């Protein structure tokens, strides 16, 4: 039985019975649902809306009055217009390029069997949960000054837009492969065969049968990629140089370098508005996606490539994966061992000593990161779990709106959130400025959307009649929940926790503001090392990045084992 089901109505209805099951007796009434919604609603109000609101107010409010006059000033500034334009077009270009390269891969992973497929699918996902800072440094090692390409052919791509675009493809490849490929592997190939028998050519069958079924998933993936690249921060910080800045980078500069809060506030609002409209679009496509599709087990749709064309396609995809996804990771690892005196563990040893950059040895960042991420994961799973349970039953626009709202932190300026934490949560009753809990709270904000997206499809797939079967066999409602719901959902909870953990581990934009100087996280330490000159610092950054990558990859490989063939949005 396929419990993975994405948000597609399977024949989960009452069947050809007597119209009975269409109105299943809801276990939870509206009261229960609101109680479940209260936890995430309170969390988002206090730790998202309030800090973001505070920072906007700080910028645009003076003497108790709003000064919206700043809006046209800022938006009329040619530099800002340039930033806006660059943000927009690089996001569009990154999205297009990602689709171009990842859609064939989605097809190959969905329809072909080849040795090492499962391992490769896990590896392809590694970049997605990698901290953006590490992605940036990996590409720097590949394309930058003294990088591999520089060494071989004297080609340097850093500070060009190509480095940014390629890093974005690297980062978001997995979204397309997992979202589109997951659905593709469950589409019944016989649908296309039916079209062929009715006289459609191979291409026409694809266009009229597969593409319409796949369309919403492609749109959803494209929107996610657009969202992530539109708000890109770490990658651009490291690869963009002084010439390229996205809105998010500009917000950081205005906030941290120029202390121009009004401009930062306006830019935050612009970004929020842009992201909200993208999310509205996303919610709309997801809704359209909930049309009935006949899904089959993914194992039944894949086969060995047969024709030379198919083998060439497989070869091409594997080459792209190797060059684009695996080589930066490999180079990163290699650089971390390449000490001036030959390959060795010198940089790793240096991590254990503190020098001028840090009050503590950089290696302590590993422990900090793990501890922060663990706490953030617990928060994200509790908050996200409540939210997912609350929106499990399909309901009116209120619940759908709540669902979309949960995604908002993904696209909101992390810099704004981080700075907002500092400004807003510094007075009683919520004086958390010097508390360590600020970091995991900010990280959990990014983790919650992942938890919701992972758990929702599984919760929705639990058939009410399974609970009824348990009840008839003598299980009380509580017992039925423990015996039926919990075991079915526990795997999804684990997967959700894993993603939340990996995402928390890599969070940079907010953490960089709020992590205490004596308690840096891994990405913060990497960024600080990269920001300083000197070969040792660079090597140490590579070494720390390698450690971070190894932790993320280990978490992910573990997840791959747990999740098996479940399709999810991530």
């Amino acid at each position: 039985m396929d419990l993975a089901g994405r948000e597609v109505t399977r024949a989960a209805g009452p069947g050809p019975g007597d119209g009975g099951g269409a109105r299943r007796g809801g276990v939870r009434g509206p009261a229960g649902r609101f109680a479940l919604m209260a936890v995430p609603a309170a969390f988002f109000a206090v730790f998202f809306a309030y800090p973001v609101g505070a920072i906007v107010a700080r910028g645009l409010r003076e003497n108790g009055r709003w000064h919206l006059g700043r809006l046209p000033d800022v938006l009329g500034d040619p530099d800002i217009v340039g930033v806006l334009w660059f943000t927009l077009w690089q996001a569009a270009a990154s999205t297009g390029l990602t689709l171009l390269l990842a859609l064939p891969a989605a097809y190959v992973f969905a329809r072909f069997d080849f040795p090492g497929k499962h391992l490769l699918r896990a590896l392809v996902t590694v970049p997605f949960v990698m901290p953006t800072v590490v992605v940036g440094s990996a590409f720097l090692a590949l394309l930058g000054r003294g990088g591999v390409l520089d060494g071989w052919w004297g080609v340097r791509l850093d500070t060009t837009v190509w480095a940014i675009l390629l890093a974005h493809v690297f980062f978001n490849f997995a979204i397309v492969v997992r979202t589109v490929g997951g659905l593709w592997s469950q589409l019944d190939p016989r649908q296309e065969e039916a079209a062929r028998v009715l006289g459609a050519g191979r291409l026409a069958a694809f266009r009229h049968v597969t593409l319409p079924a796949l369309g919403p998933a492609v749109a959803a993936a494209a929107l996610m990629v657009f969202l992530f690249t539109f708000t890109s921060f770490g990658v651009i910080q490291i690869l963009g140089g002084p010439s390229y800045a996205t809105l998010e980078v500009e917000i950081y500069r205005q906030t941290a370098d120029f202390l121009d809060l009004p401009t930062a506030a306006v830019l935050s609002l612009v970004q929020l508005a842009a992201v909200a409209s993208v999310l509205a679009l996303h919610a709309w496509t997801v809704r359209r996606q909930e049309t009935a599709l006949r899904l089959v087990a993914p194992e039944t749709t894949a086969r060995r490539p047969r024709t030379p064309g198919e083998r060439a396609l497989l070869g091409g995809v594997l080459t792209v994966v190797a060059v684009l996804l695996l080589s930066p990771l490999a180079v990163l690892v290699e650089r971390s061992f390449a000490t001036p005196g030959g390959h060795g563990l010198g940089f790793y040893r240096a991590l254990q000593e503190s020098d001028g950059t840090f009050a503590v040895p950089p290696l302590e960042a590993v422990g900090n990161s793990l501890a922060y991420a663990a706490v953030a994961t617990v928060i994200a799973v509790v908050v996200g779990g409540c939210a997912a349970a609350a929106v499990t039953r399909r309901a009116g626009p209120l619940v759908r709106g709540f669902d979309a709202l949960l995604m908002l932190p993904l696209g909101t300026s992390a810099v704004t959130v981080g700075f907002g934490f500092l400004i807003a949560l510094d007075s009683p009753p919520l004086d958390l400025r010097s508390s360590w809990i600020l970091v995991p709270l900010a990280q959990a904000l990014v983790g919650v959307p992942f938890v919701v997206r992972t758990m929702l499809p599984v919760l929705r797939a639990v058939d009410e009649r399974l609970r009824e079967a348990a009840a008839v066999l003598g299980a009380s409602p509580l017992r039925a929940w423990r015996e039926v719901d919990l075991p079915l959902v526990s795997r999804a909870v684990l997967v959700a926790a894993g993603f939340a953990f990996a995402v928390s581990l890599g969070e940079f934009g907010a953490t960089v503001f709020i992590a205490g100087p004596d308690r840096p996280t891994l990405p913060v330490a990497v960024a600080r090392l990269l920001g300083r000159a000197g070969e040792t610092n660079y090597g140490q950054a590579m070494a720390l990045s390698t450690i971070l990558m190894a932790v993320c990859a280990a978490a992910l490989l573990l997840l791959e084992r747990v999740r098996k063939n479940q399709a999810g949005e991530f």
Partner: protein
Amino acid sequence: MLVLDDVTVRYGDRAAVDGVRLDVADHEIVSVLGPSGSGKSTLLRAVAGLQPVAAGRVLLGGRDLAGVPAHRRGLGLMFQDQQLFPHRDVGGNVAFGLRMHGVSRAAARERVASLLALVGLPGAERRAVAALSGGEQQRVALARALAPSPQLLMLDEPLGQLDRSLRERLVVELRQLFGRLGTTVLAVTHDQGEAFALADRVVVMREGRVAQTGTPAEVWERPADEFVARFLGFANVVRATVHGDVADTPWGKVGVSAAAGVPGERTLLIRPAGVRVGPPAGTGLGCEVVGRTFRGEHVVLVLRPESGPELEASVALREAPEVGERVGVGFEASEVVVLDSTPDGRAGGATGGTGS
């Protein structure tokens, strides 16, 4: 054992089950038969406590079940599509009800083994339910429902999704099994063959009401009304005026057996076997053969008479005319049934149904 006393179940304004009365005696097998949408699954859900009853009472062994939640009713229910727990193996599914009732591990293991042997799957405890065929899943679902020894076992379309030969074999097996165990069974199905083969008594439902109750033979021999007759697959149903042992029909005068002949406006059923097909000349009703369906030992003909609606006739294969031929048709009084022969026209009193 089970008594339904004027039970009504509502979905909003619509009554899916409307004032149903029904008795199931100890060790009896009762099949509720009806088209989809007739309320039969809802009836089971109401008895199981999965659907609230709007009016009337459900009594089990004399006890009113109102307010008793599903898990305390001590009933067995086999779901239409089994609803086996996907995260448990076969043994875990069968043992589920035993665990809920606090049966010790060792005793449960023993009972699971004997039940799996009973349903023809000995030693299947460790198998995954996803790896079972449709028929095997059905057997596991049956074993799971039987495990806690329910007072009453309810089956919702027990064989609905199986192929024909397997279904026919399982019906026989089930009947033997229930007879041996002395289980009281309430089953619902839309398949008359299944209902007739399985049940001691059949209850035909229509739009939430009981249309007829009786033994399989009674229902088949004397359908209570036009609806039941047509649901059982009879096509030759017309309005007629009965006087004495003759009825005036659109097909002319048709003899009826005097016993059934209550005079007046009646609905008449002529069984296909009672339509005699002969050469076109002579006294019979002239017809053209417009359809011919091969059914193995006999052939079903669709005949278009000079007057009146089309007729169905069942004839031996050797004697069957071809499509397009003209034939003469006569009727056999013994195969003619006057349906609504009781004054109220419902739930045929002549069939002697219980509780209708």
